[in-house]
């Protein structure tokens, strides 16, 4: 609906990679792993953990739904959703490629992308495993 959202997302990821590289002075592969893990933490928290909306006007109608479930009014597999599933996978591939598939990074990156992609699948709509995060 608003132009430039996808581009802003990709640009933020790219610039945070540059930031991590300049602050920590590590190898590009480690930097991509760090970006991937932070991306995992932040997007998991905002898309799949926090529920409700930042506005009080809707009177708590969406208080049981995470932001991922509210997106596009609950319609599955729209363009936005497909894009957001592809981004963690692409990040994963870049991180693995630049670290040459070495061990601690491989495990952490795979864990991150596994959790994120599973959480975004259409079958997981409104599913709460073991009742975690089920209260409003």
């Amino acid at each position: 609906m608003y132009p430039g959202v996808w581009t802003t997302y990709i640009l933020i990821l790219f610039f945070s990679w540059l930031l991590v590289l300049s602050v920590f002075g590590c190898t590009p592969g480690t930097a991509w792993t760090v970006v991937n893990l932070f991306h995992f933490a932040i997007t998991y928290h905002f898309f799949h953990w926090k529920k409700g909306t930042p506005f009080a006007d809707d009177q708590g109608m969406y208080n049981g739904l995470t932001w991922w479930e509210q997106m596009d009014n609950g319609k599955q597999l729209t363009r936005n959703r497909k894009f957001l599933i592809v981004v963690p996978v692409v990040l994963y591939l870049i991180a693995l490629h630049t670290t040459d598939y070495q061990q601690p990074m491989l495990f952490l990156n795979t864990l991150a992308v596994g959790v994120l992609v599973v959480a975004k699948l259409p079958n997981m709509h409104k599913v709460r495993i073991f009742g975690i995060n089920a209260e409003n």
Partner: protein
Amino acid sequence: MVRLPYSTALTTLFSYGLLFAFGHLRDFFRRIIDSRKPTTNLKDYAPICLGHEDFYTRRLFNRVQDCCNRPIASAPDAWIDVIERYSNDGNKTIHRTSKTSRCLNLGSYNYLGFAAADEYCTPRVIESLKKYSASTCSVRVDGGNTKLHIELEELVARFVGKPAAILLGMGYATNSTIIPALIGKGGLIISDSLNHNSIVNGARGSGAAVRVFQHNNIAHLEEVLREQIAQGQPRTHRPWNKIIVIVEGIYSMEGELCKLPEVISVCKKYKAYTYLDEAHSIGAIGKSGRGVCDLLGVDPADVDIMMGTFTKSFGSCGGYIAASKEIIHHLKQTCPAHIYATSMSPPAVQQVISAIKVILGEDGTNRGAKKLAQIRENSNFFRSELKKMGFEVLGDNDSPVMPIMLYNPAKIPSFSRECLRLNVAAVVVAFPATPLLLSRARICISASHTREDLIKGLEVLSKAGDVSGIKYFPVEQEKTTAVEKLKKIQ
């Protein structure tokens, strides 16, 4: 799809993302610090507000709330006294001082200059205040129907060009209580996507089905009409009881006129009723001030229901509906705001009567015609000068409302505060009144602004625009000295 330059969209989204991130960081630390405080004595009660619900208000709006709700200390004339305020804790609490600053008023809906004392209106208003007192203390159907109310209903009907009219005490309440009285379950309301909140509220409260068509897009209106008439009501597919299409004369956030002749012809073709909300256009546009029908050459008999308010061009408060005698008769018996709400205050009614008489020229002078010519001239001059300076100004020619696009959330307070510092009172609008990326500053021109006032306003807006960086369009080179040349002519 919202239209704006791509690079501006990127920077605006990034700014909102940054504000969002900082807001969440602050919330996170606040939760840690507050977990050590003792819990309140309201144990086991549900919280009035869940922590995340007012995130937008607390972390985005409160930072810039000194740009809103500014108290004023005079009548909203061309120049206005704004009370100075200060804050010691980053705008969480704001305190008034006893000083005021005299600012050029570019924010009030004072289209014809009736907002301040007027040589014809004010003595008559004071007379009626002495005779009828400040309130009728009753509803219209009980004891609140004075001679003034009846006179105004007839005058409004004559002014607008309809057989009869009904008055209500508040403009917002007019839309939100009349629409449910006109249509109910089994009916269809088709409303423009940028309609005012009062119409949305009335439509939702009526129980009718509501469909929206893209703003001013006649082809889409026709498509929606055809689809809905063919489908009928949801699930039963019975034909709709009635279909009402609701449009506004001037859209206050865009400054645009509606394409009234085309809307009327489409509605006639598909036998739908039309409801025209002329809150901003009545009295302000058209050769004789009769609103958008006058300006676009539409016969008022073609519009089924015409609604308007007295707040903008007439310097009073309240709203009216003008329609055929049968519809008004029905509304007088079913509209809750007529039956249960207190009637308009008599001095306010007298103000509207006097203002309409001035506009029509029935006070014996040609001040009305002069005011109408003045506001048209002022609006066109101001808009063309702003465009020459490079601002992105929306709206059609002849419309006294001109929004200047800001886009970026940081430019909203910057523009507003800089204008106030230079003694111009301008109104800025952001989400949720406008789409998220399309925040704007809205300028309302009045007939009481003189040429010097407008030139001073242009200078200040230009300086504030430079500070905030909102001159998105190229400046027209040979005309940059327009302001200096104009000053020399003065």
